[in-house]
């Protein structure tokens, strides 16, 4: 039989001067031969109290180590998830804040230039519709600025008036 433990568990066992097999055998011996209550019931400083605390400590410590194993082995996946989420979030913000507004602005410039050239071509007696390539009808993107795109506009508050000292207030009031 094999058991998977945290490397930190093995280090802790080493520090206590114990090995895995020794601990396992003691654990097997305890199972079924210990009280299953969760709180201290015996009087302190008595033999029964000490024995009870041994059982309670062992159960609570085993529980702590089981939780620690589960949490520690799941933690890398939690970290990966946070990184992946942050990357998606950053990409979304980047597109919304920088990429899309820049492209829309470029499109506005191009349409203006295109319209100017179309007028100039028409004035020469040519039909601008014969000069391509054309964006298929109905597929042109609306290049107007969208709410939420571009850098967030900061709200500017009116600066507070200069705080007057008590002396200046008295001076302002003048002599009575």
């Amino acid at each position, binding site marked *: 039989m094999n058991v998977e433990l945290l490397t930190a568990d093995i280090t802790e066992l080493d520090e206590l001067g*114990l090995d895995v097999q020794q601990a*396992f055998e003691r654990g*097997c011996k305890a199972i079924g031969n210990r009280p299953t209550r969760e709180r201290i019931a015996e009087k302190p400083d008595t033999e029964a109290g000490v024995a009870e605390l041994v059982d309670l400590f062992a159960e609570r410590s085993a529980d702590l180590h*089981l939780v620690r194993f589960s949490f520690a082995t799941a933690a890398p996946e939690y970290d990966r998830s946070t990184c992946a989420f942050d990357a998606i979030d950053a990409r*979304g913000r980047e597109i919304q804040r920088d990429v899309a507004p820049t492209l829309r602005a470029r499109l506005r410039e191009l349409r203006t230039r*295109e319209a100017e050239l179309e007028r100039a071509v028409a004035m020469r007696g040519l039909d601008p519709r014969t000069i391509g390539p*054309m964006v298929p009808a109905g*597929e042109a993107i609306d290049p107007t600025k969208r709410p939420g795109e571009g850098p967030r506009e900061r709200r500017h508050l009116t600066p507070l008036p200069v705080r007057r000292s008590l002396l200046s207030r008295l001076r302002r009031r003048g002599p009575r």
Partner: protein
Amino acid sequence: MPAIDLPTADTSTAELSLAPDEFDVVRVRAVAEGLAPDREGELLRYLVYLGAAYLEAEQVVDEASSAHDGYDELHRRFGAVSAGAAVLRFHWAEAARTYADEQRAATAHGRGVGGYEALVEKLEDEIATREDRILHLEEALAA
């Protein structure tokens, strides 16, 4: 990750020796007790942790000069592991909840970003087409 002292996820495998029929007896006792986990891998781990804690506690009792000292020391350690387990459970629950939230949000967010990326692609296509047409219009005017 939370600011708790969590060891790295590095694991090692240790071999345990116990006759299969003996282990079956232990498993039956564990089920009857209702405190140990059911699955074999977890049960084996639990038995190692439980045994290590018993040996540690028994060492404390052996080394104590009186029942009072032994009780005091055990009580202190019991308090420490109880608090440690509570803190760890809290952080684990928080991390698991955040993970679930992130998974859900990443799916929704991913769809949104995907939509935006498709829009960027369409904008780039239209820009290329219009730049090309502007060149042709300029050529027509220059001719």
